[in-house]
């Protein structure tokens, strides 16, 4: 059983590695942020940064629904949870689709609709979702790290040092 993870350890670009990095970043965030409520009402964008650490032009803003860092923190935690337990939840709910539960259908391309039995389409779908997940996880990992660092810098400074 361990063989699988050993094989992928060396390959930085494998999905499992990307997943592991996201989960590790989210865990690190979770363990660092001892008082999550301190994140409330702290805006995601740094308004007063003496030294703009990591907030260069390439760093994308967070124009998402989450208005403050606290909600962002909760989001990342919940996504990590989905990655860890999503399959179990799915199977327990009789295979109800993630798509139905969490996604606005009209916003997303109907890739899975209809031709799920076609062999070549399955392979295409596999690659599509693999690459898509890779992109999202990479971005989320960066966000988790960013959030952790901001907490340590701006909020955690006054509380107990880890």
């Amino acid at each position: 059983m361990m063989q699988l993870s050993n094989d992928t350890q060396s390959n930085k670009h494998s999905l499992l590695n990307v997943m592991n990095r996201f989960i590790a970043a989210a865990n690190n965030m979770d363990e660092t942020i001892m008082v999550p409520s301190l994140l409330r009402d702290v805006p995601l964008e740094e308004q007063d940064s003496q030294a703009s650490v990591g907030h260069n032009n390439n760093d994308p803003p967070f124009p998402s629904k989450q208005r403050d860092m606290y909600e962002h923190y909760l989001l990342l935690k919940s996504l990590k949870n989905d990655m860890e337990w999503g399959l179990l939840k799915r199977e327990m709910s009789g295979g109800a689709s993630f798509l139905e539960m969490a996604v606005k259908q009209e916003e997303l391309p109907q890739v899975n609709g209809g031709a799920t039995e076609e062999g070549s389409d399955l392979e295409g779908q596999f690659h599509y979702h693999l690459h898509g997940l890779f992109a999202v996880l990479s971005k989320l990992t960066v966000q988790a790290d960013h959030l952790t660092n901001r907490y340590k810098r701006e909020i955690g400074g006054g509380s107990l040092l880890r």
Partner: protein
Amino acid sequence: MQSADAKLSRSSLQLALRRYSSVVRDMEQTVLLPSLLRDVPYDEAADCEAADNNMDLYEYYLMLKAIKNTVESGLIPHDDAKAKNQAALHKGLEPLLEAQPEALFHFHLGGLFTVMATLAKKSQNLTEKYLDIIGVSH
């Protein structure tokens, strides 16, 4: 970080991927003469609305193996035509990556779960078909 390792090994997606890998490994170990799968149509009258006309069992076998390799070793670059198609699909979703990474995450994670489960089932079916072909009861 032992507890973290334990958590990682429980990850649902890892589980789904591992399950798939193990089913395909089983298929590889069973199918000792893959050439026997050539020209055998993939006819799943039982659970499939549209029988797959394009691929015979042998091509299916190769595809399932290729996907297992991708899962285990990394993102293998695929051919240009596919890459172009997917680039267009991904491009359409770029705004979502910024604004709603959560929705996109669930979309791809759920999609991957579904695809892996389907592929795993097809691997098992293929293995059983092979056993039928060589006349082994199972």
